[in-house]
């Protein structure tokens, strides 16, 4: 292939002209939108805070340099060169590796199922944000209107709204309960919006991406400006970024940094391959890879500054309210004049009263109010978005506006990632030609979205959120790491490093240097293998359990830790390995087909090629 000058006319399997991006900006924005997702907002700041603030950036940057960027470059280069979706690309590299494309497609399908369910939850919150006061600001009254609902009183209005009014979660994963119609209609709208945007492939996503990729940056800037002007923001930021270099000795930090950069760039899903396949063949994919990866990391940092300034405000206001409650107890118990004890003089007043009347002071229900305790209350994932941040928004002046902006931003972040997920499913199917040519593309995308919608209704059951955690942990993580490992090995060793470097030289005008070749051949595969083994060891070290929301638990509102029942464990194992099983299955199938071919036909130097281009 290196001998021929390369294809001048873009042709795909159907013979029609392959769709192309309107301009380079659409392509870049699509890749950035796919890479920048909800994880940048709610996973990276949590990791930064848990693992010693600024010190976490060291393993993060190392992982970015030795794992993230090289893998990303491979995906873009391979997609751009071979101009196919993931199935076609790997089949073209070697028919034995065709299973990888199927594996990528399956993992993309599973990921899009639960990712869009998260968007459903975001949409539900967005719909409920258009009112004042916000519905999660106060507990509802109970049935005979003598008090507040028990469950809400014991936990908090925000938690109650999330677990009861949104999810209506059951206390056990085995207790599925009925489909929640509110979530079902939001799911329908969610998938309808996705369908509307991917209906004609990149022709429509290319237009939609202008909004969905840029709107989050606008909102993040607004939140940053607002957050920095709130009291307590600087405490939150200093707490976040104060480096603690001792954490680098903990191997868990390196594992989390590596997995974070891996999932943050959305590698091994096949989406970037699909996007790059619509590029003109001579395009500098190396520069694209480096710039998109850097934009993704910068976005993570930017988002964490915005998020933590708001969380610092929340911690400061919670701390202030804690002090106010203690002051009220003191004033009521000792009948002191109102406002005689302020937040600053509280400790002095308490000491004075404790010296004079210790018995009475001991009888008061005073809480220990330390700002660090409130700053430590970090959360990641849905806990951050739907519980912690919604509570922070309640105390900002003009709360509905901020709630609408926040959930609108989350929705468009998730939507741009969904485009990549859907493209990684639809492009390979289009290239395979599963539908007859006269059936328009809209039908294929419609059928794909409909199938995903019906399958995703299982997440709208009462136990749906528990299943979503399972999908997130088991379906995506292990499979993607394995598939990425096979990707690197497939390109570096099966395709051939020399041939690949020649292809890149043809596309970009420059051969890849020593850094690229070293990482592709040695560093990245080793890193990926290490990560995979460490991840498996981590999962196997503790028996899998989940945290259930059980109002009848004696330590409610703490969540009850329960082990998974046997059939759920079986499902976890299936999810972990089924998508990757495509690789050996297809390889074996090809081997058997070839053996049968060899025994049937006499051995020849070169078989005559049928018109369809199928090699022997």
């Amino acid at each position: 292939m290196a001998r021929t000058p390369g294809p001048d006319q873009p042709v795909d399997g159907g013979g029609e002209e392959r769709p192309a991006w309107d301009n380079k900006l659409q392509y870049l924005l699509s890749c950035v939108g796919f890479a920048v997702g909800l994880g940048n907002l709610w996973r990276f700041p949590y990791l930064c805070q848990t693992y010693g603030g600024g010190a976490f950036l060291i393993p993060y940057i190392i992982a970015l340099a030795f794992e993230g960027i090289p893998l990303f470059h491979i995906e873009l280069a391979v997609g751009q060169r071979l101009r196919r979706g993931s199935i076609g690309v790997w089949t073209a590299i070697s028919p034995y590796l065709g299973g990888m494309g199927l594996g990528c497609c399956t993992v993309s399908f599973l990921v899009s199922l639960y990712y869009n369910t998260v968007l459903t939850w975001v949409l539900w919150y967005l719909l409920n944000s258009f009112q004042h006061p916000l519905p999660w600001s106060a507990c509802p009254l109970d049935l005979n209107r003598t008090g507040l609902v028990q469950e809400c009183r014991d936990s908090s209005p925000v938690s109650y709204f999330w677990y009861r009014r949104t999810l209506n979660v059951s206390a056990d994963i085995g207790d599925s309960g009925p489909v929640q119609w509110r979530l079902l209609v939001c799911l329908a709208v969610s998938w309808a919006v996705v369908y509307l945007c991917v209906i004609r492939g990149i022709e429509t996503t290319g237009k939609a991406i202008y909004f969905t990729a840029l709107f989050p940056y606008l909102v993040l800037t607004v939140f940053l400006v607002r957050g920095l002007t709130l009291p307590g923001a600087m405490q939150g930021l200093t707490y976040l970024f104060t480096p603690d270099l001792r954490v680098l000795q903990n191997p868990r930090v390196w594992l989390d940094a590596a997995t974070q950069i891996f999932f943050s760039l959305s590698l091994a899903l096949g989406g970037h391959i699909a996007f790059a396949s619509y590029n003109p063949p001579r395009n500098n994919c190396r520069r694209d890879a480096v710039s998109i990866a850097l934009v993704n990391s910068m976005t993570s940092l930017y988002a964490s500054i915005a998020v933590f300034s708001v969380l610092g405000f929340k911690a400061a206001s919670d701390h202030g309210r804690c002090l106010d409650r203690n002051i009220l107890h003191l004033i009521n118990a000792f009948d002191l004049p109102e406002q005689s004890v302020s937040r600053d003089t509280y400790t002095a007043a308490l000491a004075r009263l404790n010296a004079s009347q210790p018995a009475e002071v001991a009888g008061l229900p005073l809480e220990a109010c330390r700002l660090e305790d409130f700053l430590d209350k970090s959360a990641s994932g849905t806990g951050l978005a739907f519980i912690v941040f919604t509570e922070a928004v309640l105390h900002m002046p003009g709360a509905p506006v901020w709630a609408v902006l926040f959930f609108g931003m989350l929705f468009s972040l998730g939507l741009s990632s969904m485009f990549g997920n859907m493209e990684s499913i639809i492009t390979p199917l289009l290239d395979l030609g599963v539908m007859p040519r006269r059936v328009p593309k809209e039908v294929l995308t419609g059928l794909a979205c409909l199938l995903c919608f019906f399958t995703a209704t299982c997440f709208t059951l009462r136990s749906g959120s528990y299943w979503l955690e399972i999908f997130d942990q088991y379906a995506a993580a292990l499979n993607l790491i394995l598939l990425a490992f096979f990707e690197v090995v497939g390109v570096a060793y099966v395709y051939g490093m020399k041939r690949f470097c020649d292809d890149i030289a043809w596309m970009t005008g420059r051969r890849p240097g020593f850094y690229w070749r070293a990482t592709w051949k040695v560093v990245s595969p080793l890193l990926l293998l290490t990560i995979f083994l460490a991840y498996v060891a981590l999962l196997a070290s503790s028996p899998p359990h989940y945290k259930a929301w059980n109002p009848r638990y004696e330590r409610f509102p703490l969540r009850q830790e329960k082990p998974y029942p046997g059939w759920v464990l079986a499902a976890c194992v299936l999810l972990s390995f089924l998508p990757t099983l495509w690789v050996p299955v297809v390889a074996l199938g090809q081997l058997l087909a070839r053996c049968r071919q060899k025994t049937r036909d006499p051995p020849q130097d070169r078989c005559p090629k049928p018109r369809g281009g199928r090699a022997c």
Partner: protein
Amino acid sequence: MTQPDPVGSSIPIRVRKKTRAYVILTVMLPCSHRATTMRPNDNNVTREHTGRSKAKELTAIRADLCRPDAENAFKVRLSIRTALGDKAYAWDANEEYLFKAMVAFSMRKVPNRETTEISHVLLCNVTQRVSFWFVVTDPSRNHTLPAVEVQSAIRMNRNRINNAFFLNDQTLEFLRIPSTLAPPTDPSVPIWIIIFGVIFCIVLVATMLLIISGIRQHRRKNKGPSEMEDSEDKCENVITIENGIPCDPLDMKGGHINDAFVTEDERLTPL
């Protein structure tokens, strides 16, 4: 700010009983002569003297009835500065009078208690917090009214009591009297359904438009090649030149594979 009278606690019981009987008599007299006005000048000095000592005994008895944690007594706590900030008023004897008036007003609304007077409401233990205890006595001023009656009376008129002081249920607290919670103000149609309807309609309309425009494009493309096919049939019979290329080698019906393009075989890794 009135201070509790310590005198009542030092009077021996026997004396108290006597004075109580005495008090009843003296109280009954003005009631029977309601038409005539009670002019202090009518009383001679001895009567005034007994009146003053009777007043002391009255306050002594009232102090007995109203004390912290007494039977049928309620503690009230006001947070005026929290509620009104700069516009906070000072709590003085006049405000207490208003409070007594509001409580008496509430009691008068209860059947059988229409004769409650302001003087029947006793306040004690007023602190700087602005908290105090109160009881409501019956007309005989012997004993206090049952807590249940007082509680229900206050609950019925809580709103008016709050408004008299520009406070609300949280800043004017009656401990042990729970306030009736406001009924939820649910709109007839939940707001989220309205927004949902709007978004759904927009998405549906946009999807329909895209599908229809796609169908139109498809029809236009189908019409185009069919016209091309007519000219190809002519090509089959007559070797015409289209754009300098003879029609035959193009072989439109045999598929769109361009033999000049790189073949599949060379792309594959040799096995």
